């Protein structure tokens, strides 16, 4: 039996096409993933992200523990609700998972990790925690809804009480606030403004339905994937994994090298790789010929395979096929060929950020 989120029945009632996603029965789309994609770019859409794992990290050494566990440094977090994006690495510097950590107090942090990596993440976190005075507890009592788009904040606030509105008023990007029963974070995974909202599981469907009544369109995993790829955001297991370092996945900015005396898991391996230069890098591709790039296709220069597409799709906003590809660091060409089935098609190399705030960058 696959896991079901607290919102599962709402998806079934809305005639969602349900698929298995990392052991969860999740909505792929509610009819047209392209319509859902455009709703997020042009107005407001919402995603059930309750399958993601929320972990409470508490205890006297919570901060010390997370400063050792993560490549980014939670010591940067001084304001309650402030969030940080980080890789959680193995000793070789490979990415076990990418996550968001929220600072609540010096003895209480909230970590959100991916759904498909839940078991190995929790095992790793527990294992590292043995050396610290810290408790790791998974939250199973919340639904999580991402509301995204240029009108997302306005529409989400329209169903909040005055007290809740006051609590989220002026919330800055990458900051969260407790608003009554809601934990509201101004974060997201689409390149649009919006909130990721944790709501008690018993209230999840009611909250979802209220958002729908306020004009927020239900969107499935398929639209979430095209949106995040347009935004140039990595997907775990595709654009990076345990065999890939943050330096090879455009996540160099998430490594806090300073202060130098902070040890963290993977630091030695990363330091060595940085000195020598990471062997590979992640680039963006825009297909100039007709066709669609897909994960696994080879990137070719002068008849040599120089890399592989890690994510590829048709971008609904730009009408072009876009992709991320991991290639040899030495690649300097502005154009490459991509082996798409029996043909080699021309693609232009760009920064892997294709759409921002609804506008094409390519």
């Amino acid at each position, binding site marked *: 039996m696959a896991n079901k989120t607290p919102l599962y029945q709402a998806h079934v009632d809305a005639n969602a096409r349900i698929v298995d996603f990392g052991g969860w029965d999740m909505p792929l789309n509610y009819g*047209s993933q392209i319509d859902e994609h455009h709703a997020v770019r042009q107005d407001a859409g919402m995603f059930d992200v309750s399958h993601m794992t929320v972990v409470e990290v508490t205890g006297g050494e919570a901060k010390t523990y997370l400063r050792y566990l993560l490549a980014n440094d939670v010591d940067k977090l001084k304001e309650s609700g402030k969030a940080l994006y980080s890789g959680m690495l193995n000793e070789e510097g490979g990415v076990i998972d990418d996550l968001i950590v929220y600072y609540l107090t010096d003895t209480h942090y909230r970590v959100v990790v991916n759904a498909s990596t839940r078991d190995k993440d929790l095992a790793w976190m527990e294992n590292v925690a043995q050396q610290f005075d810290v408790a790791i507890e998974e939250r199973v009592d919340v639904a999580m809804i991402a509301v995204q788009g240029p009108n997302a904040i306005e529409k989400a606030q329209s169903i909040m009480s005055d007290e809740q509105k006051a609590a989220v008023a002026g919330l800055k990007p990458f900051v969260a606030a407790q608003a009554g029963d809601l934990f509201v974070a101004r974060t997201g995974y689409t390149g649009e403004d919006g909130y990721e909202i944790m709501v008690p599981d018993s209230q999840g469907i009611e909250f979802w339905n209220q958002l729908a009544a306020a004009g927020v369109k239900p969107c499935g995993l398929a639209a979430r994937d095209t949106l995040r790829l347009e935004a140039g955001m990595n997907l775990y297991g595709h654009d990076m994994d345990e065999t890939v370092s943050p330096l090879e996945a455009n996540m160099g900015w998430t490594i806090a090298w300073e202060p130098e005396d902070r040890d963290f898991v993977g630091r030695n391996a990363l330091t060595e790789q940085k000195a020598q230069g990471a062997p590979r890098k992640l680039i963006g591709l825009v297909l100039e010929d*007709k066709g*669609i790039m897909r994960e696994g296709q080879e990137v070719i220069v002068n008849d040599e395979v120089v890399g592989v597409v890690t994510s590829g799709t*048709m971008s609904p906003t730009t009408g072009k096929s876009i992709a991320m590809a991991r290639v040899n660091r030495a690649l300097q060409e502005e154009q490459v060929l991509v082996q798409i*089935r029996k043909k080699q098609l021309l693609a232009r190399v760009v920064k892997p950020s294709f759409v921002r705030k609804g506008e094409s960058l390519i």
Partner: protein
Amino acid sequence: MSQIPAELKYVSSHEWIRDEGDGVVTVGITDHAQELLGDVVFVDAPEVDSEVDAEDEIAVVESVKAASDIYAPLAGTIIEVNEELEDSPELVNTDPYGDGWMFKMKLADAGDMDSLLSADEYADEIAED
């Protein structure tokens, strides 16, 4: 429920075939197939004048999510492709049995039509999916 027009013939790989007379047929993908695919965003059509065998992979339909092969239902020669699909691949979703047709072919042996599935037989096949 998917539409399965009674006057057409089918193959289990979800192509429909319309007999246009004189051994010429029009081929597309079924309503059931387009529902499974979701939003079609690109059709890589077969080449006109190419000779194909039954079950050859001759075209590709790409939805946002995935690519799917289209097979020649019977042996013959491709005589025309639907050029409208180049600019409007979504016709495969909106009108799979009409404007969303994919190609026409001249059959090597018009008698081969007898080997195709009827609408009822195709309905039975997809009921087992």
